[in-house]
């Protein structure tokens, strides 16, 4: 691929790793050669690096695809997903899934990332709704100072929620920060 195809979210391969362009600036001083200044994120490790290319340079496109899949179950340190279109199943090891396992519940729709046709990661929806499985009743009279309490989700993940949230209720969570957003009335 030619550097002129670079833009935000473009995916490319360097030193055997897939990268996604997270920040992109094109500059071209004094009718001179164009410079493509990029911030890149390693799609497997998440590490970021800065690189500058000049117009005319060639890059290797990353053989990266993502497929919409449904989370089925986990067993023995692997997580199993199913392609919603062709029902094919793939397995990801716990270290590839990482902290995202906190928010994986059965039948959740996610994007599974494939690099050279191998599954390498999961992208969760930015917001999900889960059920509180365990939480102490709120303590009355302390709402001004520290109006939250600890609650546990169906996956075992623990987070702070407002005092009025009760066990068995459903809450919306931001998967990027892992924080409570709001109670969902069903």
């Amino acid at each position, binding site marked *: 691929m030619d550097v*002129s195809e670079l*833009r935000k979210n473009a995916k490319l391969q360097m030193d055997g790793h897939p990268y996604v362009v997270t920040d*992109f*600036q*094109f*500059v*071209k*001083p*004094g*009718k*001179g*050669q*164009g*410079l493509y200044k990029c911030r890149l994120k390693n799609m497997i490790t998440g590490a970021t690096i800065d690189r*500058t290319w*000049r*117009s*005319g*340079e060639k890059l290797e496109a990353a053989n990266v695809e993502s497929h919409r899949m449904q989370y089925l179950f986990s067993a023995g340190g692997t997580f199993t997903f199913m392609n919603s279109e062709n029902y094919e199943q793939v397995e990801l090891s716990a270290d590839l899934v990482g902290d995202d396992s906190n928010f994986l519940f059965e039948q959740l729709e996610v994007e599974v990332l494939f690099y050279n046709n191998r599954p390498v990661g999961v992208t969760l929806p930015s917001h999900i709704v889960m059920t509180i499985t365990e939480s102490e009743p709120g303590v009355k009279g302390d709402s001004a100072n520290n109006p939250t309490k600890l609650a546990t989700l169906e996956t075992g993940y623990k987070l702070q929620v407002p005092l009025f949230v009760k066990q068995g209720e459903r809450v919306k969570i931001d998967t990027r920060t892992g924080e409570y957003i709001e109670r969902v009335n069903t």
Partner: protein
Amino acid sequence: MTATPGPLPFERRVAVWDAVLTAVRGHLRGQGLREVSTPVRVLAPAIEPYIEPIAAPPGFLATSPELAMKRLLCRGSGPIFQLSHVFRQAERGDRHSEEFHLLEWYRVDTELAALERDVEAIVATVFAAAGATSSAPRAWRRDSFFEVFAATAGVGLRGDEDDGQLRERLPAELREAVWDGRPGPLLSTDPEVRSLAAWTGLFGVWSDRHLDPWLLAQADVGVHLGEFPGALAALSRRSEQGGRAVAHRVESYVGGVELANGYLELREADEQRARFLAVNALREALGAPRLPLDEAFLDELAGSPGLPACVGVALGLDRLVMLACGRARLSDVTLALGAA
């Protein structure tokens, strides 16, 4: 520049562009220039090493109206200006767009200094027309490329060094950035290609590393950077000044943003043809297609009376509107809604 306030509301954009286009035309007409409109599709674009025209068979979309306007000057048009849409392939970014408005004008029988005053007046006019949401440059300064280069890079240049001399002269930091890892045209067997590649490569690297920080450190002042090295003359005249090879070319900057590029125009047909051919040779070494020469333009230059003594400048109007509205992205002020 201060924090960017985000996209200009649509109603404001229409009002701002209407006021800007009216004010710019009014100002230049008031200066005795006449407005012209030349074709958007041309058979031969001005040949530049790093500007790719977009094909529009049997020719190209104009990358600038320069050659067409110079042909009008050859026929006795006198001082003229044009507000044109120009196209440059694959130039996309916060301050680049494949299609943009170029405001280009020519004055006859005068010096580059007249264009510098024009640029200052156009900048003030557009800031005022945009409603002064951002402060215009509080003053302008003029600097020589040679002085700023010496002050920032730590070495002096003569302006006509060949690639070998340039390589010896430069500090390691710039030498490595220009030569290392990407030899391409720097290894050409054609010495002219090697030198042009070295100079254009150096200008890009130096601008990015030294000139931009130097400009941003005084972003409240407009800067005219004049007296370019002869090797970077493009379509401007060259002369010898105090032992230096000088190109009569000026780049103007506002808020650290490159805004306009002016020339004391080259008039000799043979020299013009030689420069087009040298650029085409560099293009070929870069892997870019050779472009057709504008023979009609070259004939006009070679004929009688030819091109009158003139100066010309091209100014990126979208960038100026962006600056006048206190924005940092062209997309924040454009009327090209949802453009590519």
